[in-house]
């Protein structure tokens, strides 16, 4: 056994091991055929392989919903918790174990509705997490209820005359949070962009929030139907500090240079839903991570008890 510091004991690293994509494949995914979740899973498995992340030091945390089955389909550690509460769990993991690589997978109900409070505060705490919002604009697992991101007018079982309110814009919400450090949008139907964005998100130190636009093949098959067919409806935000995917250039000709350090411009660009903008809206790697802020020197059991004995002196009779 080796002392790894911070009160961790372990074996020496198995540095030579090389991981293939299949090493990350867990149970067969049970999502519906055509579900955007499959594309995200593939992109994540590609990312894990490209980065050669050790399955034992990687944790996927999710809440409840279709997308929250995600961890089961990987071979890493996984924590499939309760609805809306993935972020506090992930924050706790990171606070105690900054050495772990932690990903969070949430759906739109999970993140922007029942877990909205945690979402805002996690952005502010800014722990070093890669956070994916798999946003298909509907509650799928519970069978077709309106979510905060459901487009206005879309019919569901709970709002049969059409979604009553304008959809919540997760980007403007996230961009409004103090100390948020990375906010991006990508789409399941542009796999190369999805992969590149996740990779940039993972590289970012701090909470990288990625909203992934996707369709539910059963309940919201049409929400990005036009954009899927007409790349002209999509605008790529490109920058050396953001995401550049040269391979997409021939198809996606609408491109905009956007410096992700420009928060005011990011907020402006995030305001409108048309064109659909994909890219890194905002990135500030200098923002402080919560677990860094809260790092304290570790103590051995004996050190702690010696100090506690001194502490007891203050209360001694």
């Amino acid at each position, binding site marked *: *056994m080796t*002392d*790894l510091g911070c*009160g*961790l*004991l*372990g*074996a020496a690293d*198995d540095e030579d091991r090389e991981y293939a994509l299949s090493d990350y494949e*867990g*149970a067969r995914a049970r999502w519906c055929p055509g579900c955007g979740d499959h594309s995200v899973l593939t992109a994540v498995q590609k990312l894990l392989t490209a980065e050669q992340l*050790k*399955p*034992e*030091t990687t*944790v*996927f*945390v999710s809440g409840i919903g279709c997308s929250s089955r995600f961890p*089961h389909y*990987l071979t*890493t*550690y*996984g*924590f*499939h*918790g*309760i609805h809306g*509460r993935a*972020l*506090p*769990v992930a*924050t*706790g*993991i*990171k*606070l*105690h*174990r900054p050495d*772990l690589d932690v990903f969070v997978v949430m759906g739109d109900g999970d993140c922007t509705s029942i877990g909205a*409070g*945690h979402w*805002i*505060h996690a952005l502010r705490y800014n722990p070093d997490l890669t956070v994916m919002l798999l946003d298909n604009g509907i509650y799928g697992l519970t069978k077709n209820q309106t979510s905060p991101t459901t487009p206005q007018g879309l019919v569901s079982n709970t709002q049969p005359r059409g979604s009553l309110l304008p959809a919540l814009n997760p980007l403007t919400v996230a961009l409004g949070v103090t100390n948020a450090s990375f906010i991006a949008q990508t789409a399941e139907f542009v796999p190369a962009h999805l992969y590149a964005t996740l990779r940039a998100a993972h590289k970012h130190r701090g909470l990288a929030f990625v909203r992934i636009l996707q369709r539910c093949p059963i309940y919201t098959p049409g929400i990005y139907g036009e954009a899927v067919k007409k790349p002209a409806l999509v605008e790529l935000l490109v920058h050396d500090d953001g995401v550049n995917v040269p391979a997409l250039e021939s198809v996606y000709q609408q491109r905009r240079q956007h410096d992700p350090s420009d928060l005011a411009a990011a907020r402006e660009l995030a305001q409108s839903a048309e064109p659909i903008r994909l890219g890194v809206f905002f990135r500030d790697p200098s923002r402080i991570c919560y677990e860094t802020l*809260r790092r*304290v020197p*570790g*103590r051995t*059991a*004996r050190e*702690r*008890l010696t*100090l*506690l*004995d001194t*502490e*007891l002196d*203050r*209360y*001694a*009779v």
Partner: protein
Amino acid sequence: MATSLEPAASVVDAPPDAARREATLAEHTLEVVSDAGEGAQKCGQIFGAVSARMRNGVWTVEIIPAEIQPPPRVPEGASGIRIRLGSREITNWGDQTNLVVAFNEQVLLARHRLGALAEDAVLLLEDTWATHEDEAVRAAWNAAMNELSSRSYRIIPVPMEAQCLSLVDNPRKGKNMFALGMLAWIYRRDLERIAEQIAHAFRKKSEDVYSQSVALVQLGYDWAGRHLDFRITVPSMEGGRPMVVMNGNEALGMGAIAAGMELCAMYPITPATSVSHYLSEVFEKFGGVVHQAEDEIAAAGVAIGASYSGKVAFTITSGPGLALKTEFIGLAIMTEVPLVVVDVQRGGPSTGLPTKVEQSDLFAALFAQPGDAPRIVLAPATIEECFHVMVTARRLAEAFRTVVIVLSDANLATGVQPFPRPALDVRWQAAPVDLTALPDEFKAYGWNAETGLSRRAIPGQPGGMHTLTGLSHDDRSKVAYSAGVHQQGSAMRSRKLAVLQSTLEPPVVYGPDAGELLVVGWGSTKGAIEEAVDRARTEGRAVSSLHLRFLSPLEPGLREIFARFKRVMTVEINYSDEPDDPYITGENRRRGQLAWLLRAATLVDIDCWTRVPGEPFKPATILEIIRRRTVVTEAS
């Protein structure tokens, strides 16, 4: 038991050396009461700590108004502290107060109206109000004097404000130290120890505050020496084991350190928050962090995330917060992630009585959960146990891979009592997180089929990868809805409690282990119950008591113990229907929570006496309950 002072013929403003009464008493109970913000509690805390240092038995209880800044000079705003001093160990706040220092007559009235004051209590009362420029104030003073004259109190006017003005501009900020000086003179407290205690209490304040406070104490001390005609000696206890003195919330925090826990996640809630105040001040030095989460739910989630990834973490809360954490607690139980949840109980339901004691969260702690969610529930009965329970809680959470709920209460939270200095043991501490590789055949829930116990894998451990899930799962943590799997998982989680119970000893009866009446309690009522039992026995009544620390699983052997008594009853600070209330029958009567639990567990016809007064029980009250249910069988 407490003897008070005879009213003296001559009172104040005359050097009373010749007439001075010196009383030596086995115990004495005093209070300092003021408007909120005038520092009566600080005065009493320092006095209590110094008294403990001088080896008196001490129990302090804070008198807390529900509002932060209630209007001045109203009875509802009474803020203060009661200190019971003894020449032996003191385990509760006693019955009535023998001496009061009051900063105005209205807060004194509040204590009078509550019946808190002994018939012959000595009342040291700020007299500036008697001659106040506002006629309404003078009228209120006169009305109060009239009301107080119905009892044979001895009222001694004290010009606290006038005296303090010789040293400070704002007497509101100085009276409490003047009062402390008076008390120091009356009870012969050591001024040097008082100065040390002031330095500790005001460690975050400036040197000026310290020196001014010490000067005010001296002023009060000298004033008392010149004007009071009595002094009181409560002899110290024999020297012996080294002791420490603190309140229950500090003890919980220190216990968490002794247990080797490194993360406390919380959201502010009275009366639990002061645990985090204490820890926020010292925890980092011990390698620990207090995380103030965005809400109660997140606090539970952060603690679970931390526990899942290594050392057991804890969250502290009170009733409404416990309710919010319910779903996460269920997740931790279902996924067998160890977690310690401390609930410092207050009056409920809903927002209830935020600053007042109650023992109403027992059922919430035991059962609040959809589905079957067995967990361990412990209740410390003393300040000392608040310390040690955290060590026990962490170890049980880890060993049994489950949630341990610790039920403290507002009485323990702010109560101060000396207790034997803990002999720290390195085995109390959590082991370093072991990340060595697990064998190929490792299962996320490798349940021992007999005990339900299993080893958990921690992220970072090669070979242990799996996805925890709150869904029904098999021993590999695979989602499985089949009947057999859910039956087995449920059985394994439940079995652990029986296994834990098999390791416990039957509880020890206080007093003879057979008799007419057995009083059963839990939590902070222990001292008052046992004192009442002692008194009842000296009257010749065959009564004993039993105090439970484990509420889930229950300690073993209860049915046998109960069988040796003609009657068994619980005494609890929670609500129950009175048997003779309208509509109440033996079948529909809602009983005290422990009584309900014990009846179900033992099939013994257990009675209960419960009240929700928002304050601790007095021994005399419990004695009266015992008297009504027993006969005098032996000559006293």
